């Protein structure tokens, strides 16, 4: 039974000094990882593995269902995709879609940057941005499409209008909250250097808020991509030039379900490519190199 009183003093023990082995004589302090450990550390390998598993499950389910009209197998879809690419239809539709997308995306970014810069430099600008984002952010871009058609007619300008709408608010909201979270110390440091106005925004605020801005860019990209495909599905063809959404719609009308899947797969592949390659490269060169985000 440990019946020590709370005031019991600990025993006084003799002092000891040891000789420490020099690190050089300890042998390997760091040892290389095994091949398997290196592979499981690699993000690309891990994600690739997930894709393989999904493809296998898809193929198995498709074969078990045995109904190409409602659910084609993975291999059928790949074949349709190959045919689509070989005939040049998918690349052509994709390039139409991407062109519209890039124009809309960048207009959206520029407008967002201007709005946010006004918002951080004046109080009325802040109120303006908060009110606008609160009003328009919840409004689905696709809901504006009928109006856009009325204003800009059946064609690319209407699509660009809805893309700008879908990108603008998400990016502006992220940029603004990024700017607000820049630490007071960093702001004061910038001001002691003599930075003011736009130079302050570009020299301190934008790089310091870059993790949030990048998150905004990613969300904006996903919104834009989604909105565009949806808009194309609704009224894809304009002056004889349909995009990927139109491709999907067309093939559904002819009940070529494998080609519909091929179209969807292309949509996903482009999304994945931009996310996993382009944005990842930007991240590696910026926020992760700067230690602002862990890899």
């Amino acid at each position, binding site marked *: 039974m440990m019946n020590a009183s709370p005031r019991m003093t600990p025993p006084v023990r003799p002092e000891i000094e040891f000789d420490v082995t020099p690190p050089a004589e300890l042998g390997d302090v760091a040892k290389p990882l095994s091949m398997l450990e290196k592979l499981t550390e690699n993000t690309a390998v891990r994600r690739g593995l997930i894709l393989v598993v999904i493809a296998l499950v898809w193929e198995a389910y498709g074969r078990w269902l045995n109904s190409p009209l409602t659910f084609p197998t993975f291999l059928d879809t790949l074949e349709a995709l190959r045919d689509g690419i070989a005939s040049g239809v998918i690349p052509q539709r994709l390039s139409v879609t991407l062109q519209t997308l890039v124009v809309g995306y960048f207009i959206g970014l520029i407008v967002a940057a201007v709005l946010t810069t006004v918002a951080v430099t004046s109080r009325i600008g802040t109120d303006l941005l908060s009110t606008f984002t609160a009003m328009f952010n919840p409004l689905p871009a696709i809901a504006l499409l009928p109006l856009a058609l009325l204003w800009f007619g059946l064609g690319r300008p209407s699509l660009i209008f809805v893309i700008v709408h879908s990108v603008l608010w998400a990016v502006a909201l992220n940029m603004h909250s990024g700017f607000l979270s820049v*630490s007071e*110390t*960093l702001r*004061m*440091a910038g*001001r*002691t*250097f*003599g*930075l003011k106005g736009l*130079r302050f925004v570009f*020299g*301190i605020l934008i*790089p*310091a808020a*870059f993790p949030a801005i990048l998150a905004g860019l990613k969300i904006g990209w996903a919104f834009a991509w989604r909105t565009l495909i949806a808009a194309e599905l609704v009224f894809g063809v304009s002056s004889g030039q349909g995009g990927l959404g139109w491709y999907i719609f067309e093939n559904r009308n002819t009940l070529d379900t494998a080609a519909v899947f091929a179209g969807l797969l292309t949509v996903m592949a482009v999304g994945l490519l931009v996310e996993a390659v382009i944005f990842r490269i930007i991240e590696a060169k*910026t926020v992760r*190199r*700067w*230690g*602002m985000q862990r890899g």
Partner: protein
Amino acid sequence: MSQALDAQAAPDAQTLKPLVSVEGVTLQYKTPDHLVTATYRVSFEIFQRERLVLLGPSGCGKSTLLKAIAGFLQPVEGVITLKDRVVSGPGPDRMMVFQEFDQLLPWKSVCANVAYPMLVNGVGKAEANERALEALAKVNLTKFVDAFPHMLSGGMKQRVAIARAMAMKPDVLLMDEPYAALDALTRRKMQDELLQLWEDIGFTLVFVTHSIEEAVVVGSRVVVLSPHPGQVRAELNCHELGFGQRDSVEFGRLTNRISHMLFDGQSIAH
């Protein structure tokens, strides 16, 4: 400090003009509920090459005072002048080193961090780079010029901040509890390095701290502030007391005297 330096820095204060003068400065800041008076009619002067320490318990407005000298806030009463010009905003003639480690720009390498304020102020690229490397050599960071701030330890980050401030060759260097977030061993080393730098370069320093010992070691003159709101309680000389004198009778006497001032005669254990 050494005898030779004392002899050299001996001109009569009456004939010299102060570099910075703080005259009857009352500072206030707003919180959501209150208008807080941080300092009340504080006056003191800073001369060239002085190491002036603002010392006081937390809440005496010493940091606020330093920020006012830096130009981040305007006195509601009184005036702060630097070289006879009224301080009206922050500027590179009063570089500041903060307590927080995040004062470095994480997206720039160590060398680029030090060079950046110079580039902003129109110094040529080659010269800025050269001065940056020189300043980094002075704080023993030559090996880390290409590293990014997140790879450095806290002490190293503060050294970079000091190098960055010094490379600008400001009229006065402002330091706001720069070593408060460091461990005791590193802090001591950094204080020693700062004094060494001062002997090498001879800058003018305003240093804020709440540690009596740090004040006496780092400073050549200590302004003791009383709390809530800050008023000048005393201006004391400690230019003869440095690291070497830490165990001396004079050192103990001065720190005792200061702690009595700060704690209004309450006895405190040492």
